[in-house]
C-alpha cells in the first residue's frame, strides 16, 4: 500500500494539512490569501475547495489579531494553523508570538497546551530585498518555547507538518520559497520528490545524513541542503568527500548527530542562510567546541552565513551575501588546507 508520486514541497505541505484536517475536526487554517489564492507560496493549495471558508479562513491584514486568535483558540481546544505570509512580517505581531504563544505554557506551569502551527515563508535569492528575504529561524529558535521546523524537501515537509499539527506545543514551520517548487520561482530539483500518499510523521530532533562522506561535515538546513548537495558533487570531482547533515529541526536540535558526524570526519563547515552573528552557525560551532574532549578536529571550523548586513536588492550584492554553491566549495577547500594548531600552551 506504499503508493508514492512526485510532489513539490508546497504540494506535500498542503497534502499534509488536508489529511490532518480530514482526521481531526479541530484543525483549521487562518492567514492572508490562503483561500482562493491557496497561499502566496502554495502551502494551502486546493484546501478551500475541500474544506470551505469556515476551516480555510482568509484573514484581514491583522497578524497580531489572527496569530493571537490562534493562541486563544488553541487554549480553548482547537488545533489552529496560522500563516505569517513572510517571516519578515514578524515585526508586526511578535508580541503575540513571543510574549504569549511561546511563554504561556511555561508561565502556566505546564498546565496549558497550545497546539498552534505557525507556517511562514523564508529565504532570499530572487531579489526581494531586505524586508522579504530573511530566514530568521535562529531568532525563533533563540526564544524558549517554540519548536522550529525547517524542511529541505517534499518528503520531510509532509512528515514534519503532520508531526507539527499533532504536537501539543507551538511549532514554527518555516519553508524556504526557493524549494517550494512554485511555477514562478526558480527552485532546486532535489527539493521535489517521491512522497507517500498515506499520512506519516517524522519525529522532531532527528537530523539526517543526506550524503555520507569522510573528509568533512557540512551541517546545514532548508534550501542550503540542496546547495550543499550540489557543492558536495563538485567537491567529489575535486577529490573531497563531504558528508551533508540536514538538521531538519532547530528546536529540538539533534546535537548527537552533529557530534557523531564531526567525530567521523574531523572537519566542520556550517552553511546557513540566516545572519552570521549570534546565530545558528555559532550555536553549532559551540556544540563542537564544548565536546573537544571526545571529538577531535583536524581543521578549524568554518561558518558560512549572511555577513551581518540586511539582504540587499541588487543581484550582485545579494549573490555576494547569501552563500552560493561556489562559496560552499571554496570554504570546504579552505578547511581541507588548514590544520588545528599542535602548539602547547604555557
Amino acid at each position, binding site marked *: 500500500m506504499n503508493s508514492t508520486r512526485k510532489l513539490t514541497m508546497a504540494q506535500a505541505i498542503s497534502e499534509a494539512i488536508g489529511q490532518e484536517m480530514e482526521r481531526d475536526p479541530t484543525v483549521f487554517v487562518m492567514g492572508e490569501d490562503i483561500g482562493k489564492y491557496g497561499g502566496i507560496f502554495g502551502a494551502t493549495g486546493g484546501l478551500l475547495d475541500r474544506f470551505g471558508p469556515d476551516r480555510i479562513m482568509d484573514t484581514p491584514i491583522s497578524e497580531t489579531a489572527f496569530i493571537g486568535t490562534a493562541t486563544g483558540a488553541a487554549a480553548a481546544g482547537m488545533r489552529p494553523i496560522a500563516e505569517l505570509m513572510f517571516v519578515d512580517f514578524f515585526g508586526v505581531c511578535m508580541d503575540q508570538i513571543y510574549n504569549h504563544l511561546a511563554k504561556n505554557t511555561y508561565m502556566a506551569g505546564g498546565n496549558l497546551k497550545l497546539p498552534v502551527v505557525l507556517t511562514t515563508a523564508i529565504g532570499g535569492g530572487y*531579489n526581494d*530585498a531586505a524586508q522579504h528575504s530573511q530566514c530568521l529561524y535562529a531568532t525563533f529558535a533563540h526564544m524558549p518555547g517554540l519548536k522550529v521546523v525547517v524542511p529541505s524537501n517534499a518528503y520531510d515537509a509532509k512528515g514534519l507538518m503532520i508531526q507539527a499539527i499533532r504536537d501539543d506545543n507551538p511549532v514554527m514551520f518555516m519553508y524556504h520559497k526557493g524549494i517550494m517548487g512554485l511555477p*514562478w520561482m526558480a527552485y532546486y530539483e532535489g527539493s521535489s520528490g517521491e512522497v507517500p500518499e498515506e499520512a506519516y510523521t517524522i519525529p522532531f530532533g532527528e537530523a539526517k545524513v543526506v550524503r555520507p562522506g569522510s573528509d568533512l561535515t557540512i551541517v546545514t538546513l532548508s534550501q542550503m541542503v540542496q546547495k550543499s548537495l550540489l557543492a558536495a558533487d563538485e567537491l567529489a570531482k575535486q577529490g573531497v568527500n563531504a558528508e551533508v547533515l540536514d538538521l531538519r529541526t532547530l528546536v529540538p536540535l539533534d546535537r548527537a548527530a552533529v557530534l557523531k558526524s564531526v567525530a567521523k570526519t574531523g572537519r566542520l563547515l556550517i552553511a546557513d542562510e540566516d545572519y552570521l552573528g549570534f546565530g545558528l552557525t555559532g550555536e553549532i560551532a559551540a556544540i563542537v567546541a564544548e565536546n573537544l574532549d571526545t571529538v577531535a578536529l583536524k581543521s578549524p571550523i568554518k561558518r558560512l552565513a549572511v555577513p551581518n548586513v540586511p539582504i540587499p536588492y541588487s543581484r550582485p550584492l545579494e549573490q555576494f551575501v547569501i552563500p552560493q554553491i561556489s562559496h560552499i566549495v571554496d570554504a570546504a577547500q579552505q578547511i581541507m588546507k588548514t590544520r588545528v594548531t599542535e602548539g602547547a600552551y604555557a
Partner: protein
Amino acid sequence: MKASKETLLWMYEKMQEIRHYEETMAQVYLEGKLPPNIQKGLAFDIGSGPVPGEMHLAAGQEPVAVGVCAHLTDHDTVVGTHRPHHFAIAKGVPLDAMTAEMFGKVTGLGKGKGGHMHLFDPQRNFSCSGIIGASLPPACGAGLAAKKLGKDWVAVAFFGEGAANQGSVHESLNLAALWQLPVIFICEDNKWAISVPKDKATSIEWVADRASAYGMPGIKVEHNDPVAVYEAAGTAVERARRGDGPSLIEVKTDRYLGHFQGDPEVYRPKDEVANLRKNDPILRLAAQLRDAGQMNEAEDAAITARARQRVEDAFAYARASAYPEPRDALQHVFA
C-alpha cells in the same frame, strides 16, 4: 479649494508620466522572465531579468498621488507603500535615480540596496516600505518634528484599504489626533488586498468613518478623480499647516494590474479591469481640460510627449548604469 489651470495641467502631465512609467515597467519587468530562457517547467521566473524581485505597479491609481502631492513642497514629507512609484513621481523624486534603483544599479537612490519597495529620497522627504501599515508612524514622526521645529511643514502617509486593519494604523491615528500633528492620512481603496476584497476584510464600508473614533475629520472621495482628491487634500493640508491637526481621507481608486506583476489574478472577475479602464481618470481629465478650453490638441500632444520622454530617458539611464561591486554589500549598515 479650486484647482488652477496650471495645477490641472501639472496633474495631467504627472498622471501621463506615472502611467507611462508603470506601463513601461510592466514590459521591462518581463524581460528575461519567460520561457524558454528560465528553468524548465516554470511559467515565469521572478528572480530573472534586468528588474528582478516583486513589482507592484500603480496604473489606475494616479489621481491619489497627484491630487495630494500638488499641495506639497520638498519640505513636506511623503511616506508611501509597497506600491510606491506614483507617489514618488508626484513628489518629484528624480526618475533616473529611482529607475536605476529598480535595476539594482550603483546610480540608484539607494545604490541598488533597496529596490522598488524601498525608495529613499531624503532631499525631497520621500520614503516608502514593503511592510503593510508601516507608513503611518514615520509620518507622525515627521509631523512631530515640524511641530517641534516650529515649521509649517506637513506629512502625508499613504496606505491601502488592506492596511486599515493593521494595529499600526490605529495607533498612529490616535497619536496624531492626541498630539494634533500636521499629518494627512490617505487611504487608497483599490478594493483588493492581494486576493482578499475589502468587504471580506473590513468590518465597515468606509475606512474614513473610523476618523470620528479618533477625533479627526474623515473625508470620503467617492470617485477616482484627481480634481476631487485635490480639493479634499487641499482642505486637509491647509488645516494641518494651520496647526489644527490631522485628517483622514479615503479615496476610491482602481488597480488596473495585478497585485504584483505575474499575479495570475484567479480571484478577480475577468471583465473587472476592462470595466475600470472605461473610467480612466487620465482620459477624463484630458476631456475636461479640452472642454474648458484649457488645453488644445497640440498642447496635449506636447505634454504627453514630454512625460513619455522623461520616462524613456530614465530607463535608458538605468540600463546604461553600472552594477555595484559585490563587496559594496558590506557598506552602509551604519551611517
